[in-house]
């Protein structure tokens, strides 16, 4: 009976839960799913992390390269994010060139990078106008069940914290790079943004950390990125409207989540360093 | 390259031709067994292969079908090895697409398309060696292939180029003359009525010269027309005798 109701009228089915202030998976409206983080599990990458938010699983691998910096910003390095949604992650994703979901996720991360929210890119400079680090950050989602951006940002930050780079110096007289592969050091100045995604329903109900089913049914999505108490990004691409009170509530909620996640990431990083 | 080098004081061109002299034309018809009509044409060092298929039913997208006439589909392609530098895309780039469009328009005018409603005629041309006047050679080769295929035509189409150096019009321009910065006028005509079906010009010259350059090109077209007609006649007589022999 219940399954019939769900397949025939998914929205009605869902709304009966919302009316009782609960959700089909047993969570409260503003409850987040359990987050599991694992750092440094991929040996071939310069930095890596696996993040699970409920069922959504994202792997981030970072490979570092050295290249000449751009003409316009000679003392900055590069972070090149790329979110891949392979067909195995969801039945809705088809093989072929990256779809809209993957493209907009990549664009979102790229915007965070461009706004200096992830890392001060000056830290990636080896020698101004000559050499800088390029970090290729590949984010592969192996199970897509909503709130992709949340998982991607956690994975990216954890992986960045996990990166160790050899010490490279530039000898100006010889016009040569000197690389000390024995000594490696971690990156400095990584910021700690945390993204929280919320779904909005027509009747003004807000739920946090939606599953992909909930994302489908919702009338709108919004992703708020906080770093500590700073609002760093509020991404709301149209959809259902929000009033000021709701915005305030969402921001408070994200702030709470941000604190927890930051603590979690720090713990994980400490333990992974200890292992090493 | 300056005009003096392109035209010597004796009035001879860089390859020793007189200003109104065509390059040597060699042609053979019916060279492919697969195609309904085919031709190989040499104008000097420019060498072109042409093949014609059809009229046949519309292939690919059905929406291309025209309810009252045949759809003419042309493809202009330049072999990767045909020029000094290797050509990366033999077809599909803007210049090739433009050439294909012009071939389509020219032959849509020449072929009696109204006889074959809702069908398609394919013309493929491949430039094997490019030495100036590629487009004109392609038009001439395609026309020969159409004759070989027996597609009914309103009139034959012949094409020729002309240029202007030191106020002297030159006919049938080769690659050196073309790339040396002198203008190039391409003209396709129906030799019977003398009407122009296609014309294009690159580089510039004063409008007062247009008349004589155009005249030179038309004269060139007519001369080529006469030569090609001879070749056609030869080919058809050969066919005729071989038929009668069998």
């Amino acid at each position, binding site marked *: 009976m219940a399954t019939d109701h769900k397949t025939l009228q998914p929205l009605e089915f869902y709304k009966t839960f919302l009316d009782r202030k609960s959700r089909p998976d047993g969570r409260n409206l503003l409850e987040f799913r359990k987050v599991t983080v694992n750092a440094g599990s991929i040996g071939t990458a310069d930095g890596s992390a696996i993040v699970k938010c409920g069922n959504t699983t994202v792997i981030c691998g970072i490979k570092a390269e050295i290249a000449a910096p751009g*003409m316009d910003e000679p003392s900055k390095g590069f972070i090149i994010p790329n979110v891949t949604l392979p067909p195995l992650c969801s039945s809705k994703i088809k093989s072929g060139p990256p779809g809209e979901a993957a493209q907009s996720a990549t664009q979102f991360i790229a915007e965070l990078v461009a706004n200096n929210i992830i890392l001060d890119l000056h830290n990636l400079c080896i020698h101004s106008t000559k050499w800088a680090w390029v970090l290729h950050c590949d984010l592969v989602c192996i199970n897509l069940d909503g709130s992709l951006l949340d998982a991607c940002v956690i994975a990216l930050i954890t992986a960045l914290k996990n990166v160790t780079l050899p010490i490279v110096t530039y000898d100006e007289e010889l016009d040569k790079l000197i690389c000390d592969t024995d000594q490696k050091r971690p990156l400095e100045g990584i910021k700690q943004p945390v993204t929280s995604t919320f779904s909005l329903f027509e009747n003004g109900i807000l739920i946090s950390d939606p599953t992909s089913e909930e994302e489908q049914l919702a009338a709108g999505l919004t992703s708020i990125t906080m770093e500590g108490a700073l609002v760093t990004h509020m991404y709301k691409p149209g959809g259902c409207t929000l009033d000021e009170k709701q915005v305030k509530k969402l921001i408070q909620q994200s702030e709470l989540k941000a604190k927890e996640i930051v603590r979690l990431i720090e713990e994980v990083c400490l333990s992974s360093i200890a292992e090493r | 390259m300056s005009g003096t080098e392109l035209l010597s004081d004796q009035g001879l061109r860089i390859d020793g031709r007189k200003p109104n002299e065509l390059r040597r034309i060699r042609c053979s018809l019916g060279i492919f067994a697969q195609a309904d009509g085919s031709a190989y044409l040499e104008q000097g060092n420019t060498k072109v292969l042409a093949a014609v298929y059809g009229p046949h039913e519309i292939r690919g997208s059905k929406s291309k079908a025209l309810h009252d006439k045949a759809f003419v589909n042309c493809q202009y392609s330049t072999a990767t090895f045909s020029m000094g*530098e290797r050509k990366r895309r033999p077809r599909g780039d*803007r*210049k090739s*697409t*433009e050439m294909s*469009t*012009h071939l389509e*328009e020219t032959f*849509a*005018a020449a072929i009696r398309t109204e006889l074959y409603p809702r069908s398609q005629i394919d013309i493929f041309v491949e430039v094997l060696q490019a030495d100036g006047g590629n487009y004109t050679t392609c038009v001439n080769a395609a026309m020969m292939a159409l004759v070989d295929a027996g597609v009914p035509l309103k009139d034959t189409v012949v094409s020729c180029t002309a240029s202007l150096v030191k106020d002297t019009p030159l006919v049938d321009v080769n690659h050196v003359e073309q790339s040396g910065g002198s*203008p190039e*006028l391409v003209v396709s005509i*129906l030799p019977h*009525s*003398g*009407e*122009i*079906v*296609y*014309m*294009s*010009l*690159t*580089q*510039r*010259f*004063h*409008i*007062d010269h*247009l*008349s004589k350059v*155009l*005249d030179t090109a*038309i004269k060139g077209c007519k001369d080529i027309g006469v030569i090609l007609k001879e070749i056609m006649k030869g080919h058809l007589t050969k066919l005729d005798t071989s038929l009668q022999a069998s």
Partner: protein
Amino acid sequence: MKETPLSICEKQCVIQAVKEGQRVDGRSLAEQRKTCITFGTEWGCCQVLLGNTRVMAQVSCTIQVPKSSRANEGMLFINVEMSTMAAEHFEAGRLGQQGIEVNRLVERCIKDSRCIDLESLCILVEEQAWEIRVDIHVLNHEGNLIDAATLAALGALCHFRRPDVTLDGREVIVHQLDERDPVPLTILHYPLTLSFALFDQGKIYALDPTNLEERSADGKLVLGLNAYRELCTLQISGDGVFIRKEAVLSCANVAASRAVEMVEMLKKCLAADAAERIKGKYDGLVSSVALEAERITTQSQATAYFKTPVHNLEENADEESLSVPKTKLVKDQGIVTLETKSDVSSSESDIEMEPLPPASVVKKRVYEEIDIGNDSEEEPVMLITKELT
């Protein structure tokens, strides 16, 4: 999305009109539509209105490695963009055959005729040179895109200023626009195209064809010319078009004198723009945003032309209910023949009118009558005439 199908009726009417020396929008055969050129605040931005056809070009530049075959020259890249904005059958990001034709003709007219001195764009031989890129955006397609596109491209190139560079040894220093006065491009000559639609086996030709005329014609003749009466491009194309040599020559002569006027006009517009800039408070394209209220005021201009008292508001009462039995008129009679006079008298009036003065005079009169906008020269926007295409 497909292009709106063309009916036999429209085609026949256009052809018949052209044969009688008239055009559907009231112009004569050798008349161009009103051309309007405006510039943006950024250097190298030019918008051209040719009747209702609207095209914008923007020039930009980057430093690149020059081609090995032309190591001492800069590069010029011309790109035409057509999106659904201009017409519903255009697709954003994909140029169709028509787009490629426009792109190639602009390229041939401007690039192949070497109107820009590319050698002056070289910074370091074989190492660094400016690449000038012209993006031409087609905004509204009401025919004759080629002429509008070349005019916009040329206007944008003339308007463009690139940042100044200095060499410090082999080090190239690019000066930002506010640091040092930017440098204009060296324009060697001003090439433009003028297009004719060919009708009746190339015997009749109409300058600056509208979309309807382009689609009804046998083909078209595009002539690229500069102010020195030099031919820069020429192209005859179209499905099954035939033209005689004499016709080409006479078109070329008409076009040559037009080209001189157009270049003159472009130079005037450029000078006016430069003068505005010096005055300061320059807002570029903002001033070309005409309020549609002007369209309505043009109508009151029309009333002024008809010598009536000043437009009175209280009498402005419009019909109360517009959508009342809207089909009635048609439903009852089918094809309605609105004939108030008897047939005989009306034909008489026709006969009276026609043989009077030489035909051309009568024609002229009718234009005046309809192009109300033309009589009020000071009115910058003439939307009445715009509506007619």
